[in-house]
C-alpha cells in the first residue's frame, strides 16, 4: 500500500485517501472539431503504459480533493516525486540512469511462489 506525499497537504498520507486517475499531462485538444476520429480516439483511449518510470495523475479524494501528478516506477512502485497540477516533473525516464533502471527491473521480477 502506497504512502503518498500530497504536494498540497505537505505530508505523506495513506493510499486509501487517494484515487489514481490515469496518465498525467494529457491535454484535451484545443480544437476538438479539428481532430480526426483517429486523433480524438487517441486522446480518449490510447495511453502510455510504460514498464518503468510513469507520470500519472492522482487525486487526494479523502483529503484536500486536489489533483496532482506523481512520477512512479511501475515495477518497483517507488514514488520518485509528486508535484502540483501545472508543474512539470523533474524526474523522467530519460533523466533516470537507464542501465540502472533496466537492472532494477529485472531484479524486481523473478519467480514468485
Amino acid at each position, binding site marked *: *500500500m502506497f*504512502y503518498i506525499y500530497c504536494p498540497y497537504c505537505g505530508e505523506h498520507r495513506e493510499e486509501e485517501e487517494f484515487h489514481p*486517475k490515469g496518465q498525467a499531462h494529457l*491535454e484535451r485538444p484545443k480544437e476538438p472539431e479539428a481532430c480526426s476520429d483517429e486523433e480524438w480516439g487517441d486522446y480518449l483511449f490510447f495511453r502510455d503504459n510504460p514498464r518503468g518510470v510513469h507520470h500519472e495523475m492522482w487525486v487526494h479524494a479523502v483529503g484536500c480533493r*486536489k*489533483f496532482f501528478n506523481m512520477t512512479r516506477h511501475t515495477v518497483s512502485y517507488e514514488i520518485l516525486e509528486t508535484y502540483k497540477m501545472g508543474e512539470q516533473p523533474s524526474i523522467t525516464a530519460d533523466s533516470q540512469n537507464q542501465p540502472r533502471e533496466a537492472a532494477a527491473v529485472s531484479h524486481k521480477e*523473478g519467480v514468485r*511462489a
Partner: protein
Amino acid sequence: MSQSKQQVYRLNTGGRIDRSRTLSFTFNGERYQGHPGDTLASALLANGVDIVNRSFKYSRPRGIVAAGAEEPNAIVQLGSSEAGQVPNVRATQQALYDGLTASSTNGWPNVQRDLMGLVGKLGGQFMPPGFYYKTFMAPASMWLTYEKYIRKAAGLGRSPMETDPDSYDHFNQHCDVLVVGAGAAGLAAALAAARSGARVMVADEQEEMGGSLLASRETLEGKPADQWVARVLDELAGYDNVTLLPRTTANGYHDHNFVTLHERRTEHLGDTAPVENGHRQVRARLHRVRAGQVILSTGAHERPLVYAGNDVPGNLLAGAVSTYIRRYGVAPGRKLVLSTSNDYGYRAALDWKEAGCEVVAIVDAREAPTGDWVDAARAQGIKIIAGSAVIEAKGSNRVTGARVAKIDIDAFNVSGPVQELACDTIASSGGYSPVIHLASHTGARPTWRDDILGFVPGLVKGVQACGGANGCYALADVLAEGVEAGIKAAAAMGHAAQTVSLPSAEHLQQGPAVALFQVPHEKPTLRGPKQFVDLQNDVTAAGIELATREGFESIEHIKRYTAMGFGTDQGKLGNINGMAIAARCLNRSIPEVGTTVFRPNYTPVTFGAIVGRHCRDLFDPERYTALHQWHVERGAEFEDVGQWKRPWYYPQKVSGKTETMHEAVARECLAVREKVGILDASTLGKIDIQGPDAREFLARVYTNKWEKLAVGRCRYGLMCKDDGMVTDDGVTGCLADNHFLMTTTTGGAAAILEWLELWHQTEWPELDVYFSSVTDHWATMTVTGPDARKLLGEITDIDLDRDSFKFMDWRSGKVAGVPARVFRISFTGELTFEINVQANYAMHVWQTLFKHGEKYDLTPYGTETMHVLRAEKGFIIVGQETDGSVTPEDLGMHWCVGYDKPYSWIGKRALTRSDTKRENRKQLVGLKPKDPKVVLEEGAQIVFDPKHAIPMPMVGHVTSSYYSPVLESGFALAVVKGGHQKLGETVYLPMADGQTFEAEIVSTIFYDPKGERQNV
C-alpha cells in the same frame, strides 16, 4: 472418555512450563494432560502421541517434525463447539489451554488405523506428480464424476458451519522502527532504537519473546540467556515509545513499508474469545503498520535432511529436539540418532544426553568434524560416525531404527556398508535457511550465498535484515548486527544513537558445514523408498526428479507440477531442499534453478482478522436521509441505491393483509395522478456552484445551453463523458447570476463532484468557480399531484400562483415555518413542488405536510412508484436507460444538445465519430405490448424476426417496464436499432419459457403527451 494418559516423555526438570498446574485437553477423543507454557505439540509429545495426522496424498502416518511455524504435519482441527471450530491449526504454534479439544484433519476411520493409508501404500506408485493430467480423460463426460471422488479427499480441516461468535478489529499504527522477531537480533535492535527515543514496535509470533534464547545452551554475561531476555523486555516495557506485541505475526510486507501484524489476543485462552466485564474480547487484532524503518530479525529455519523414510513419526529437526527439551521439558523419545551436516545439529545430541536419554550416535556427513560442540559431544562419550548419514529411517508408525552408511556427496551415492542402529528418534540438520519471507513480499529478489548455503533477503528502501534472517548465526555476531540495525534505523528517522553495550556471549569455534540436502540411497531415487521433501503435500525427491525428466526445469514449473511449497507451511522446510534436488537432477547450481520467493501470508491469517469490524451491520455504510425514521415507522421496504437506503414502496395493511409491491405501487401511482403524493428525494446529489464563470462552466460540462437561464429559473441538463456517452443528468437552478445549485443522480453525486473538480483543476483553472457538496445539508421533499398546490399552500408563505410561480421556477420562503427553497420541477409529469429545507428541520416539515395532507389523502411513495411515473412520461434514468454506450441522440434528446454552443463541450466531438453518427444505432423508444395485460420483462431482448434460428439477431432490449395503473396497461421503454424511424412497427420478445411477446414501437411518452398536467 478414557482416563487421562500419563506424560511419559515429560522431563522432571527444565523448560519454561509451570509444572505446578495441570491442564487437560483432548486429542482425537483421548484425554491428556499438559502444563501452562506447553504448546499443543509439546503436550502431545509429552504424552507420547506419535501420529498426529495422515498425509494428504498417500495417507501416511505423520508425527511432529518442528517446533514452530515451519511445521508441516501437525495440522489439527480445533474447537469444542460448532461455532468455535478452527481449521488447520498448527499444533506447534497453539498454546495449550485447559479444555482444548483437537483432532487430526485426515484419517479414516482414525489416524492410527487409516483405510486410505492402504490406498496410499498400494496406489502410491500410480500417483506420481501430475498423474491427474495424464488420466481421467475418458470418457469426456466422466470428469465431473471422477472429480466428485477426488474432492472427497480434498482439504485439511473443515469450516465451522455456524456463524463466528467472535469479533476482530484493526489498529492503524505508525512507528519509526518496526522490529519483526524478538530473538537475540530483534531484542538488541529494539533496545538500540528504543533508547534513541524513536517510536518502536516489536512483534513476535511466539507466546513469549526471546526466540531461540529461550531454549539456548549458550550464556550471555555468563548467565542463562533467558535472563538477559527478561531484563531487556523489562526495560523495553518501561518506555512510552515502545509497543511490544507478543503472539503477533508479521504476515505481510507491502509497499512503502506497510506491514500487517496479526495479533492473536485470545487464541491461547480458548477456541472462542472469553468474556470480560460483560464484553467479549476481540479474538484477533490486525495491526496495519506504516513503519519508517523495518528491521527483519526473523531468524532462520533449520533444514531437515532428505532421506528415505524421513516422514515416519519420530523424525524431527535437530533444533526442534532441543527446543522441546529445553523450553518445554519434553524429550520426544528415548534413543536418538542425529544426522547432521554441520556443528549446530550437535546441540540436539548434547541436550538429549543432558536430559538423561540415550544418544545412539551422531552421524555426521563431514569426514572430519571439528568445533567446540563436536568436542563437547566427544567429551560426553557420544559416538560420532563421520562421513556418513542416515540414509533411511525404519519403522512405520514410529521410527524403530536408522540405516546409516558412508556417503559420497559429490558422486551422490552410498559409498560404504549400511548398518542399522536401533533408535526411536532421528534428528536431522542440514543447516539453516534465513527466514526471507517478508522481504520477498516486497518484490525484492533474494540472493544465494554459498558460504551459508542459503538465500539472504533482497531489501527495498528502509529495511534491514539482521541475525539469522541475514545468514548470521553466531550469537555474538547476531547481537552486534541487531544493535547496529537498531541504531541505523533510528538514525534514519532522525533519532540520534545511544550507546548500547552488548552482553558478552560465548565465543564458540565451529567447523565448516557441508552442503548436503538429499541423502543418497543405495537405490536410485526413482526406485528407492520415498524421500520426502514437502511433507504436507507429499512431494518426494523422486517426484522432483521425474518433473525435471519431463521438461519442467524452472523451479516454478517444478513447484507447480509437484505442488511443492503450496501447502499451509508454504514450503518453509522443503523449498530449498527441493531446489537443491532439482539442481542436482539438472546439473545446475541452485541459483540457476531459480529462487524461492514467498508471498503473503507468512503464516495463515484468520479471514475475520483481515475483515476486522467491517462485517455484519458495519460491512458497508448505510446512508440515511433525515426522514429515515419516519420511513421505517411507516413500514417502508427499502431499495439499495449506492450506499443509500431509499424507501422502495410503503406496503399497507389492507384488511389484515399486507399489500404486495404491485398493489402498493398501483395505489401510490394513482394517488399521485389523482390526488397528491410525496417522495423523499434527499438522496439526489446537490452541488453548490459559485463564481463569475459558473455559467460558462455549466455550458462546458452539460450538453445543453445555460447562457440564458435567468435567476429564479431551473433547467434540466444532460452530461456526457468526452466519448459522447451519457453519464449523468439532473436539474440545475440559477440562484443568482454567479450562483447555481446543481443536482445529480443519487449514485453519481460523489463522482460528478470529482468530475467537475477534475475539469476545473486540470483543464480550465482559469475559470473562476468553486464547487461544494451540499447534498447532506438539504432535505428534499417532492410534493406532487393535482392537489400539490392546495396542500403546500396551506403551510407556506410563497405565492404558488401558476403565473407567478411557473413550471421550472424556484422560489424561497417558509414552509411549515422553516426557510425553504421550493423548485417547481416535475419528474412525475404532475404539478410538483420540490421543497428543500435544512436537513435538521426536515422531520418537522415532513410531519407538518402529513398533518395538513390528511384531507388530501397525502400518500408517501417510494422509488418504484417514482420509476413508474417517470417512465409513463418517458423520462430516463441514467444507468437504467443508459449503460455507458448511449448518446443523447440515441435517447432522442436532441432538444437537450446545444451543437452551436461556442465551446466544444464535453462529449460533443465524439458524437460525430463514424460509429456514433451511425443511423441504425440502438435508440430509445416506447413499447406497447400488444396484450395490455402483459408487463414485459426488464432486460428482455428484442428481435424483428422471432422465427429466426438461434443465434437470433437481437436489435435491442427493454430498459424499463411497468404496469401503469392509470393507463391500465403494461408499457415499456426500450432501445431498438434504428428505433426512432420505426414508430408503429412491431417487435418481438422471445422469453425463456418459450412465449414470444409482441409489442408496438411507440413514443416514449405514454401519459399526458403535451405536458399539460405539470403546468397547471
